[in-house]
């Protein structure tokens, strides 16, 4: 048996719906149609009344989930594309993120964001918004990079009492496969050592983990041993695991698909520089997408986001510093 990242997300939702009558799914075209990416395929038939088509109203969809969460339900909201969550931005950051802090009433909801670039998707179907949501106190931001994590982290996202922004990468949906779903999982909030090394640490998350691993393969042929840390969740950010890796290697490159100004990679670099200055043999570096909207043509798109090639190039520069 082999299962894709997308199927893992569907299986996690099926299991959450089966295990807990408080769970329901709300979003555009999630019902009979099964979602734009088919992440909710067949779920409406299996769980009648609990997989619900919403009008095209991202703001109201999210407010609705907050209200249901106040009542003790556990809504899973599907944004058709992460990009459209900007319409729901107010409800996510002002309503969901502040409810527990203001009232001591928890807000257990999951907003699933199919995010990240795919070839030909252009400026409005490719954005990576993890940085923006991670900036807001009150939100947990998960960025699974593997099939196993997609499954187990989504189950944990539904189980915890806080609003979770679940960033699932569209590029991983169909290409990433695993033999089976995990029975045990690494806890959310802990980063994973995806590859051991000696000469440099690359910190990445979501699809960038795979670019970093491919870059590490390439550099291995040149004799370099690159360690790769998969953050798994960007909020909370597991600084300890990053710092321990940098202590071993003395060099840090942090790679993210979102834009360079501020953000997750800036945060990692700032933390390592502030707390691990003495561990570093070279200035900590980061690599992001270019600071422009995401381009449409595949040639431009491939150059816009970090890829194994540009990660390896950045790593080579850092190894010589």
């Amino acid at each position: 048996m082999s299962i894709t990242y997308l199927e893992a997300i569907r299986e996690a939702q099926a299991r959450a719906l089966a295990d807990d009558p408080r769970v329901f799914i709300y979003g555009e075209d999630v019902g009979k149609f099964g979602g734009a990416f088919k992440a909710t395929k067949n779920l409406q038939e299996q769980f009648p009344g609990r997989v619900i088509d919403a009008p095209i109203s991202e703001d109201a969809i999210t407010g609705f989930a907050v209200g249901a969460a106040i009542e003790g339900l556990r809504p899973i909201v599907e944004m058709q594309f992460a990009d459209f969550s900007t319409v729901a931005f107010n409800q996510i950051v002002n309503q969901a993120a502040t409810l527990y802090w203001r009232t001591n009433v928890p807000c257990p909801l999951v907003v699933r964001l199919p995010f990240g670039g795919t070839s030909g998707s252009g400026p409005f179907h490719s954005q990576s918004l993890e940085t923006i949501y991670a900036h807001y106190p009150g939100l947990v931001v998960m960025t699974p990079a593997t099939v196993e994590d997609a499954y187990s982290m989504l189950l944990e996202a539904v189980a915890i009492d806080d609003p979770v922004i679940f960033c699932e990468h569209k590029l991983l949906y169909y290409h990433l496969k695993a033999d089976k779903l995990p029975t045990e999982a690494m806890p959310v909030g802990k980063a994973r050592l995806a590859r051991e090394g000696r000469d440099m640490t690359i910190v990445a998350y979501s699809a960038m983990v795979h670019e970093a691993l491919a870059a590490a393969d390439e550099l291995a042929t040149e004799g370099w041993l690159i360690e790769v840390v998969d953050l798994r969740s960007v909020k909370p950010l597991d600084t300890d695991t990053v710092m321990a890796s940098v202590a071993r290697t003395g060099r840090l490159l942090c790679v993210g698909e979102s834009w360079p100004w501020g953000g997750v990679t800036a945060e990692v670099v700032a933390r390592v520089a502030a707390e691990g200055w003495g561990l570093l043999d070279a200035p900590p570096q980061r690599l992001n997408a270019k600071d422009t909207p995401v381009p449409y043509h595949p040639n431009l798109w491939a150059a816009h986001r970090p890829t194994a090639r540009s990660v390896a190039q950045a790593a080579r520069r850092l190894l010589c510093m």
Partner: protein
Amino acid sequence: MLLSRVLEEKLASLYRAGKIHGGVFVGRGQEAFSVAAGLHLRKGDVFAPSIRDMAGRLAFGEPVIDAVRTYLGSPLGPMRSRDGNVHRGRPQDGLLPMISHLGSMISVVNGVLFARRLRGITDVVGATCLGDGGTSTGAFHEGLNQAAVEKLPLVMLIANNRYAYSTPNDRQFACRSLLDKAVGYGIEGVEIDGTDLIACLQAVGGAVARAREGRGPQLVVANLLRLCGHGEHDDGSYIDSRVKAQHGRDCLKTSEDMLLQEGWMTAAGLEELRNEAVQQVETIVATVQREGAPDPFQHDWNAISSAHLHELHTEA
């Protein structure tokens, strides 16, 4: 209505004395419409008031002390010094704490109503209030349309007090009446004189009853005037005298006149009621003023409830 007016007068005077952190927003002139909502809702219903709904809150059962504690920032209040003034609420008791962003509470009420329905709890109504300005937001459209599609028992109360902060109706919407919105969403609606207590009680009561019967969302538009500035910092000098002449009746005054005319109350009885309200408010304010301030060093600064996911890393 009277208690609300007295409480807000006290809060305004505390504001002028510099005793309140942040702004004070009162519902002077809107009490009749607001109180009608609070009176017709029952325990177990849901209420998401807006900035001018002190009367509705009190009628729905919000304790006076919740209001005073929130305005004065007492750690014992429902918002534990973390949020102030009109943003207070007790979600567990169906009183939703508004956020500032106008229109945002509508879909939250929808979610609560949907959750009740999913759990098999029927016979519930959710009411929420907005001003004329709030109807211009996308959230208002999305929320009302959503309620209509899901056929939820939402009662949408719009106080058209003619001004959104300083912006008059003709810069806010171009339809003839806000009642026209009901047509656009395929729901029932009524329009009333919001300074007439009996009209408010009847219209809001009817809307709540229809929603409870399962006839879907209901819209009630009340015409009235805000008899004050937007907040206590604003003297409202932009209010047109012609608008004042047309809509500026004081609903509290007209209600009291009616009680006297009908012989349901004497002037002395009204005076006694007012004195009782003043006493109650003064006692509560004095109590809250002794409650002290929050201690930032003892405060729990975590914004999420899952302890194992707290970001320990707050200082670099």
